[in-house]
Structures are given as C-alpha cells and as structure tokens.
C-alpha cells in the first residue's frame, strides 16, 4: 500500500508541470523564474503573488520583495532567488517589459538644481523629464518613454 501511494504521488508529480521553465527545482537549472506577475486568490485573506510563464505555469512568490513585486501585476519580470518548499523567495528582480515595452527601473533622486534623476541598480543615472511632479526622492519606480527619459508611463514600486 505504501509503495502504491508513493508511486501515485510520483505519477502525479510527473503529470504536474514544473513551476517554471527555468525553475531551479530541476537540477542544474538557472536560479531564476520569468513571466508575468499576477495577484491571485480572493481578498482579503487568500491573496498570493505568482509569476506565470508563457504557457500558463505559475510559481508562487514569497520573500521580502513580494510587496514590490505585487505592484508589478501585469508586468513581465525575471526573478532571481531560490525555491523553498514550493515558494520562490525572490532576492532580486528585473522588469523585462510593461505592456510589451522595456522600462528603466531605479530610485528617484533629486539633484542640487532640483531636477530628478533615476539611479539604476548598476549605478547609472538617467535624467527624468515630464510627469516629475508624480515622483519624490527615494521612491523606487519604473518609467517608460523616449529620450532619457521623457516619462510617459510609469509605476511606483516602493513608495
């Protein structure tokens, strides 16, 4: 009986798609997951943040960055971290696209002359133009727009 249970469980596992095509659950796989952020469940007690890949497979997201990732619902992201008991604990992330277009992500800084810049994770800064009244120094945001960078669309990730 016990053997049959284990076999059944193994069969079900085999039938269940992996959490992500790049899931680290598979030996040798890269420690990242990629896909679209979605906030699923029912409010207020049953809410989860997942990343859904292009064929609908989902990975549940946890860890200290989940509040930021939750604000990216609908965006395409790549998360790095580790899988722990079925939950992906994200240690860092990148936004691949919002509404199909690339973004710049960073922390808003105000220069001595009062102008706003975006300091990216790699240390580079990008000048922000347009819609700057929507930002304040210290916010983590993403922005989209032509020329470095005329803000057309944007989102606040960490207020």
């Amino acid at each position: 009986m016990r053997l049959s249970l284990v076999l059944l469980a193994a069969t079900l596992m085999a039938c269940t798609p992996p959490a992500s095509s790049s899931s680290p659950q598979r030996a040798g796989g890269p420690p990242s997951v990629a896909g679209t952020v979605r906030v699923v469940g029912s409010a207020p007690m049953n809410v989860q943040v997942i990343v859904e890949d292009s064929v609908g497979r989902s990975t549940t997201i946890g860890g200290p960055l989940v509040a930021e990732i939750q604000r990216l619902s609908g965006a395409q992201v790549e998360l790095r971290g580790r899988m722990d008991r079925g939950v992906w604990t994200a240690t860092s992330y990148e936004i691949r696209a919002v509404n199909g277009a690339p973004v710049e992500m960073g922390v808003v800084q105000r220069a001595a002359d009062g102008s706003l810049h975006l300091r990216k994770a790699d240390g580079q800064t990008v000048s922000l133009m347009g819609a700057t009244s929507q930002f304040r120094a210290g916010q983590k945001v993403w922005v989209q727009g032509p020329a470095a960078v005329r803000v057309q669309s944007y989102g606040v990730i960490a207020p």
Partner: protein
Amino acid sequence: MKRFIPIAALLSIVVSACDKETPNPVIAVDVVTSLSRGPSGVVTIPVGGTVQLTANPRGGGGVVLTDRPVTWSSSNTAVAQVNPTTGTVTTVTGVASGTATITAQSEDARGTVEVAVEAPVSTGCEEGSTFLNLRVGEVFTATGPAASIVCLNGGSGSEYTYIPFFASEAGNARLALEVNAGGIGAATGPPNPSLAPGPATLNQMSAGGSVTLDENFERRLREKEIRELTPLIPSARAAALQRSGGALRNLIQAVPVEGDLLTLNANANAGCTNPDNRIGRVVAITQRAIVVVDTANPQNAGITDEEYRSFGVAFDTLAYPVNIENFGEPSDIDNNGKVLIFYTRAVNELTPRDNPSFTGGFFFGRDLFPRQAMGNLQACPSSNEREMFYMLAPDPEGVVNNNRRSADLIRRSTVGTIAHEFQHLINASRRIYRNNAQGFEEVWLNEGLSHIAEELTFYRVSRLAPRQNIGRPTALTEPVRPAFINYQQSNFGRFISFLQRPDTASLIGVDRLPTRGAIWAFLRYAADRKAGPDQPFWFALVNSTTRGIPNLRNVLATDPINWMQDWTVSVYTDDADLPVEGRFTQPSWHFRSIMPAFSNTNNRYPLQTIALTSSSAVNLNLFGGGAAYLRFGVAPSGRAGIRVTSGGVTPPQNLRISIVRTK
C-alpha cells in the same frame, strides 16, 4: 476650470541676514507651488493660466512660523501678476509671454519662484487638416500617435466629451498626459452629467455586504498574504484521487449532528501554520448547509438558533441554487454535500478597535487542501478540510474591539455575503479539483465574479432580470427595494467610488473598492453586450484554466481591452438621451437614475467630469484601465483642436481616445 496636479514642488530658498534683535526671526521662506517645475526650476503656465503659491516662513531649526506676515510681488507685472499680494497663499496669473520672478517676503527673508508664461499651445489644427464632423451620439476613436491631434468642425452649439483611456494590462501602471485645446468653449448642455437629480435616500455605509468599506484596513489585511497554498494543489488533487479510490477513507470528515462541538481553525492571517482553533457548536443542519456558531461569540447577541437555521435555509434555497446554476457545483472534499458556515468572532476581530467599517466574512482556500502529506507532496496541516467560509458574528454591545455589530446588520448582510463567498469557494475548488487549473483566479476578476453573485441573488429575489434598464422607480420602491438594499446597494456604492475618480482607479488594478465597483459594472456590461444568455458566460469565466485578461479574452473571443474602452464610453453615454450604438449602452441598469439617491453623490450622477478650456492644459495621470471625461463646446461655425501629449511628446500606442458628440 483648471485642474492642477496636487503635488507641490519645493522651490528655491533665499536666506537673508538674521535680525539679531527679533526673537525667533524668519530666516528663510519656502515657496511651494501647485504645479511642478521644469528641469531648470521654472514653473510654466500658459497665458491666462494660473499657479497657486504657498509661502512657509521658517525660523531657526526649520520651524514654520505661521504667524508671520507675507507679501508677494512680481518682477514683471506685464507677464505675470499676483493676487492677493498679502497672505501665505497667492495665485499667479499669466498675462503675456515672458518670464517673471515672483517673490514672497516675510520680515527680512525672501523666497522666489521663476514663472514662464507661454502663448497658448498650438493644437496643430490648421487649414489643410482633416476636420471631423460628428453627428450627435457619434463616437470617434483613435489610438496612440493617431490620437495626438483631433480637429473638429463646430455645429450650432455643438458639445463633446473627450475620453482618454489607458489601454494597459498592468493595472498599477500610469500614463501621464497633457491635453491642450484651442477654439473651444464651455459645455453647458445635458448630460452634465446628471439627468435625474433627486433627494438622497440611500446610505452607502448601510448596505452591509461582504467587504469592509475601509480601504486602508483592507490594504493592511492584504499585506498579510498567504503564499503557501498554490504549491499544494498537486497534493490536493492526489488526495482527491485517493478519496475517490477509497484509499484514505479515514480522511473523510464525519457528518456532524446538531449540537456537536467542532474544533475549527479560524486563523485568518496564516494559511497552513499557527492554527487558531475555535470551538463551534452546530446549530443547524439543512439540505446544503452546516451552520456553526463560535461558542466564544458575544452572548445574548440577538440571533436565535432558529434564525441561524433560517440562514442555512436561505443558503439552500437562494445562494446555493443561484451560484451553482451560474458557476457550477463546488467540490465536496468532506463528502457530505454541504457547506459549513461558521459565524465566529474571529471575523469581528479582524477589524481594529473603534472602527466603523467591517468585514462581512471571508473564504480561505487553505480549507480545501489536505492536512496530511503524501510522499513528497506537501500538505496544509491547519486546513479544516471542508468546504466552508467564515462569517461576521453579532455583537451589539461591541464586546470585540468595541465595534458594535447589530443583529439586524447580520440579518441584512448575511445572505449577500454568503453568495459572495460561495462564488470564491466554487471558483477555487473547481480550479483545484475539476478544471485542472494551475492556480487561483486573479483577485480583481475573482472579486468581480463574487459581486456578480450578489447581483444574481438580487435578480432571483426581486424576480427581475438583466437588460431591463432598472431605474429608480423600480429599484427603490416596494417590493424591489429590500432586495436592492440587501444585494445591490454595495455594488452601486463601490461603483460610485470609481465614478468619482475614474482616472485614479482601474478595472484590473489592485483590490480597492473602486476597482471592485468597476469590474462588477464591466462584467455586467460584457454579459449584456455578448450574444446569448448570461449563464454560459459566467460558467466559462469560473471554469477556466487561464486567469485574468487571458481568461476574459478566451471567453469573449475578442480583446477585452477593446470592450473596456467601449465600456468607459458607455459610462458617460448610457441613458444620456444620446442616439449611440448599442456597445455604448448599459442595458441592465439606469445608473443615472439610481445613483443620485445615494447620500454621497450630492444628488447627482457622480461621474467626475473635467471642463476643457483653451486657456490651460489639463494634466492627467491615468491608471491602467482608467479613463477621464473632459467636456467642451465648439462655437457655431467654429473649429476646435485638441492636442494630447505624453511627457511632452507624441503619446504611446496604448493611449486610446474616444470623442462623443453630446449636443
């Protein structure tokens, strides 16, 4: 009327010498502006435009000295003038093109702002441009760069509503827009936006319902997210297979009898850990319900066991049939054909002390998962292993956190709440056990479907039906009125909160009350617009292996974003006495008739509209799925132009605009 972005920018500080003889002298004056400044620190306004300035005199240590007089002056009154010239707040008006320095002086300290006044922006409409001629009720739409300039021929007293819409699949994304217009005047004709103002008779807060009306409270609760459930779905399916094969009969819950005491985990903040076990007494067993009351609930709360039984009967005869007919039957993991309804003070305890808002109940997906691990498949040790949900307990004396919950509140809200939570239960359990879905539905669509469950309950009780354009005379008059109050008033209340600021909310955004109101109204619109009966539409949305926008796209067989844009137009044009196409109508409800009856609408249809003028730009920051409503008129035989930019340049492809001629 000009609409400024309500974000202040702190401008230059000029510090003068301290007057040593004045105690606590002013040493600096901060000047805050109602408009953002450009990269060079200059505030730009058009001729005829205004900007509000606020002076904050500061003393040593940065202390704001509110009692100090302030005088204002302009270095070039031919360009910009200030009015008033004294006081902490003034308004600068652009007179002619040029620049001026505005100075705020308090004692010996000054603060300054550089103001640039620009001639009105050209809308780009010139001889040779294509000018639209719209008939009344006709809607023109354009996308992205093609929407950047719209030129209109005026008819006699013609009026229009300009509706920019952010076609984004990311609800939290925002789109910055600047809308400039030329050759236009005020719109004065109906709808403005009310057609049928009337005395208020409904209080949004009195509706009960399944959710708290306190957004901040909900947000705090959401931050206690439960993340361990989705990985358990394979385990749950394995357990279900074993039960059906008879392998683990001992996991099946015994069917309780009335009077039994059950131990139930009521922890609302943790899924599979830290059980908060409560003892519940089975007070009634009906055909489809097991009604359990927490033995620790406040005593003498005014609801008898027979009333609790009536709640179970209401579930049998109303919520259960309405929900399963439309969404399908739930799972039956405890093999008793019933749903456990637990009235527990644990729900009351979710609301902080002395808080007027409340949570009517909740469903928790953890109870659908097995307690015991199998092989390397995980389990949820604190699961109740039942189809169940949790309900607010009566507490007329405010024993729990000093929040009074009358028996009457419970009576009025319980059936609607049950209908709402039952959809969540059906949705989750069918995704896990019947439909082989990867996980749960997106919150915004899941909540929208639960609010549809409340509306379907209204139709069943009132014996009315969709697409009857139900208005105030029907909805708010006996015998329909009680059903409207019990099952629809909350939906209307949430939709009102969306209409009051449609630019700062989204159908698909984070779970806020305006989003819930909007997605309910959109789902009703979509059900009315598509061909055929409603039931297959609801069933397909619940019984899906996809979620969110892809789910809607599959079921509608079209891009739901297109329908959302049309819906934003219908929000304005429905029941506005305009000869519009059917896709710009909302056939089930006469919102313009009913909404003025709510006390928080000032007896008007509460849609926020903005007056577009030639003298100043309108700055917008639309949320994904959000829209704004800008009204204007064109002089007879005149020509008007509207230019929209984003970040100062041509807008991106996901800006869509609609213009409807209203007069």
